[in-house]
């Protein structure tokens, strides 16, 4: 602990003595068991990206099976369901959640707020190691007898723990345990993010001067702290059902001719617990993406984000509303049908703040000075895919429209577009944007453009036509589409087309991985602020910033993060720590 002497007014001084104790002393504590949020961020990101590559390969196998049923002899029905389950769970929890909060959250929160680090560095370190342990347990389930669970990523009981589903012996236990470890790890990180935002901001950094990236990650962290416990208790209860013979989720059941010793439980209860977590989870991924993309658009369009205050309130409103929409995943689950009125209404209301965000993004482009850099390209593609996926959400959210579409490929297309493709495009944009801060070098632009075009157009061509398969009546989670009178031959051809595009888009990601590694050595030197951005992470005295971030003196903030092309300013951006210019109106901006 550092004792900071207080000045006369009780305000800590800007200058803080460099304390020897505080810095890591060995290679091990510097790079491995690091308490520096930036190193933890890299650890989280590298781990999550590696899992992402595995999940991508699982999706290749799934798509190959769907396009050419039975062609790969090692993918039987059991293996197929294991593939879809692991792909889904890895992507939603272990990649997207971990990358946005553990990766970008750790890197950007302290830097953007002018803090030296997270407020609880030790818990922050533990958070990563718990995450890694959760990942190890998850991957170990590939090696246990019977393999990983094939219950679908929603893990609906009774099917998840009865015969007829692969991974009944060990896989489901490993999955539940891994999720519980992940949640414990996340809680340590999440409390850090929230407390750092509330307590760790530098002087002058009011809440309404924070970059929207921080607002998005902050709100998502609060939501995750409230939502994950529902999943945690769901996991505990299912583990008890599986191992101790309790019947939380298990009614009287005949399993392949034999009566099981369960009775009186409710499968719907699990669905409520799962989606009470699961729907906020969508926004836990989306809100950081919203925040980041707002900043990318503003920086690269050289224009203030349009309607900043509205953007903040929209993030908060979406965060709050997302806790009262969960049962829109359950319109045809057999729950009380009158719930449909309530949940359809709340779900469609959430479209309003979401639409406001879209308007403000495109209105930031309007009258901007648009630089089509690689991060900007990804941000633009995000808007396209997010608007597309968000609009199909209005189909599925509108209770009666959901009836024919639920559990079809329409749903698969929708959620991949809105919480797969769109946030991942933001992740890519953000990587191209902040890589120079983390490494001091820019990623290769030609490789980046190639990566962008194949990923954006390819992903759109995968998921846009897929909606129409669902509209036609192809259910999701089918080992093979099969023959039905209503499927024309062309539907099978479309299936093959989608698979080819999926292979292509997947291959393009290898170019990105190559770019990440190659540019580490050979990328163009970036300098401290290559994008000429206003927010604090670009104003560090040294790049990449060392432990402690800002050297001897913490920055003092005088303005919001969006002073681009301010009339009368000498340059087209004014950093947040720039004191008011001569003649600058006081109170002009938040």
């Amino acid at each position, binding site marked *: 602990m550092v004792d900071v002497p207080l000045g006369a007014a009780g305000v800590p001084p800007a200058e803080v003595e460099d304390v020897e104790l505080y810095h890591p002393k060995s290679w091990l504590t510097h790079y491995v068991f690091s308490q520096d949020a930036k190193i933890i961020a890299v650890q989280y990101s590298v781990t999550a990206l590696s899992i992402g590559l595995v999940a991508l390969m699982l999706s290749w196998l799934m798509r190959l099976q769907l396009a050419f049923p039975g062609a790969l002899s090692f993918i039987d029905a059991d293996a197929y369901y294991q593939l879809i389950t692991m792909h889904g769970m890895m992507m939603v929890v272990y990649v997207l959640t971990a990358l946005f909060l553990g990766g970008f959250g750790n890197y950007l929160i302290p830097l953007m707020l002018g803090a030296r680090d997270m407020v609880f560095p030790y818990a922050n370190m533990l958070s990563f190691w718990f995450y890694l342990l959760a990942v190890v347990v998850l991957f170990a389930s590939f090696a246990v007898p019977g393999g990983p669970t094939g219950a679908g990523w929603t893990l609906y009981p009774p099917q998840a723990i009865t015969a007829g589903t692969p991974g009944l012996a060990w896989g489901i236990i490993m999955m539940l345990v891994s999720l519980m470890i992940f949640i414990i790890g996340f809680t340590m990180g999440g409390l850090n993010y929230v407390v750092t935002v509330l307590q760790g901001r530098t002087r002058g950094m009011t809440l309404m001067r924070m970059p929207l990236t921080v607002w998005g990650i902050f709100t998502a962290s609060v939501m995750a702290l409230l939502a994950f416990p529902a999943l945690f208790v769901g996991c505990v209860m299912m583990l008890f059902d599986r191992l101790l013979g309790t019947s939380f989720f298990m009614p*009287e059941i005949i399993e392949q001719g034999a009566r099981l010793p369960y009775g009186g439980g409710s499968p719907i209860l699990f669905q409520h617990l799962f989606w009470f977590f699961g729907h906020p989870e969508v926004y836990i991924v989306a809100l950081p993406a919203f925040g980041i993309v707002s900043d990318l658009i503003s920086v690269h369009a050289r224009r203030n984000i349009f309607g900043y205050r509205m953007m903040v309130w929209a993030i908060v409103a979406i965060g709050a509303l997302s806790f009262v929409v969960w049962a829109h995943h359950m319109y*045809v689950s057999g729950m009380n049908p009158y719930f449909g009125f309530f949940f359809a209404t709340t779900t469609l209301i959430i479209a309003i703040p979401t639409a406001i965000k879209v308007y403000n993004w495109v209105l930031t482009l309007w009258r901007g000075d648009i630089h089509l850099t690689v991060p900007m390209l990804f941000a633009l593609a995000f808007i396209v895919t997010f608007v597309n996926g968000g*609009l199909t959400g209005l189909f599925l959210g509108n209770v009666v429209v959901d009836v024919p579409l639920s559990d079809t490929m329409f749903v698969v297309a929708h959620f991949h577009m809105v919480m797969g493709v769109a946030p991942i495009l933001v992740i890519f944009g953000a990587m191209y944007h902040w890589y120079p801060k983390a490494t001091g070098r820019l990623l290769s632009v030609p490789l980046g453009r190639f990566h962008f075009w194949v990923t954006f157009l390819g992903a759109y061509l995968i998921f846009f036509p897929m909606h129409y398969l669902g509209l036609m009546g192809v259910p999701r989670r089918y080992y093979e589409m099969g023959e039905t009178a209503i499927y024309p031959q062309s539907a099978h051809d479309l299936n093959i087309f989608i698979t080819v595009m999926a292979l292509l888009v997947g291959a393009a990601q290898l170019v990105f991985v190559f770019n990440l590694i190659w540019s580490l050595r050979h990328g163009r030197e970036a300098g401290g602020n290559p994008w000429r951005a206003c927010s604090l992470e670009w104003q560090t005295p040294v790049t990449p910033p060392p432990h402690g971030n800002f050297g001897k003196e913490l920055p003092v903030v005088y303005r919001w993060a969006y002073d681009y092309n301010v009339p009368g300013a000498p340059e087209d951006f004014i950093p947040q720590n720039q004191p008011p210019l001569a003649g600058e109106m006081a109170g002009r901006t938040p």
Partner: protein
Amino acid sequence: MHVVLVLVLVAVGSVLFHFLSPWWWTPIASNWQYIDDTIIITFWITGVVFVAVLLFMAYCIWRFRHREGHKAAFEPENRRLETGLTVITGLGVAAMLAPGLFVWNHFITVPPDASAIEIVGQQWQWSFRLPGEDGKLGRTSVERIADDNPLGLDRNDPAGRDDVVLQGEDLHLPIGKPIKVVLRSTDVLHDFYVPEFRAKMDILPGSSTYFWLTPTRTGTFDILCAELCGTGHPYMRGSVVVEEQVAYDAWLDGQQRRMIAQQDETKRQKGEVRAQQ
């Protein structure tokens, strides 16, 4: 200006794909035309928004692209514009939600003259039960399920004595009569899904769920399972035959006679067993 071109192409291409591609829903065979209509309304509203946003983006990127000396406008907020857009969005949302809720109310209100049938999902097959002359389905329970009683009928319930149980056979429905479909599972979740009917509902062990429909078109339709129920999920198939009342009556009559013959046979066998003892 690749980006501008691509954005326009994505907008126009998506619309063309929507209208020209061969993949569309199957001709409807139930009274749920309302659902299709609501989807069409939703397609129009969302389609217009999608195209408008993309074209506006394309315009902005072309018009406000970076050139030497070009400067962005500094305008943190525009209250009138923001309020206006919020109100328009609210109206658009209401235009989708209102018909949606109206049709939902219709969907969950079973007409009093609907006749009940039962559909049972089991890994991985469909079974059906039709009420006999009395129009009532008898009680069931999981404890009573046995080899000779796969659906667990309560033999002591008089309402169930004349129930017609169909296993491994097609379900027949008369055209133009409202039907309340009562759904039951004995093992895991399933979902009774006939794409032509539009309506579908999950099936739960431990409780029963329902929906209703009126078949409006004769023909044979595939039954699919739409809720993951284990590795046999894609192969859990069946057929439903919608036919004119006369044909339906003849079929039902045949099924009832088969049931009675079967019951007599069972009784005779039991009698023989007793005689041997």
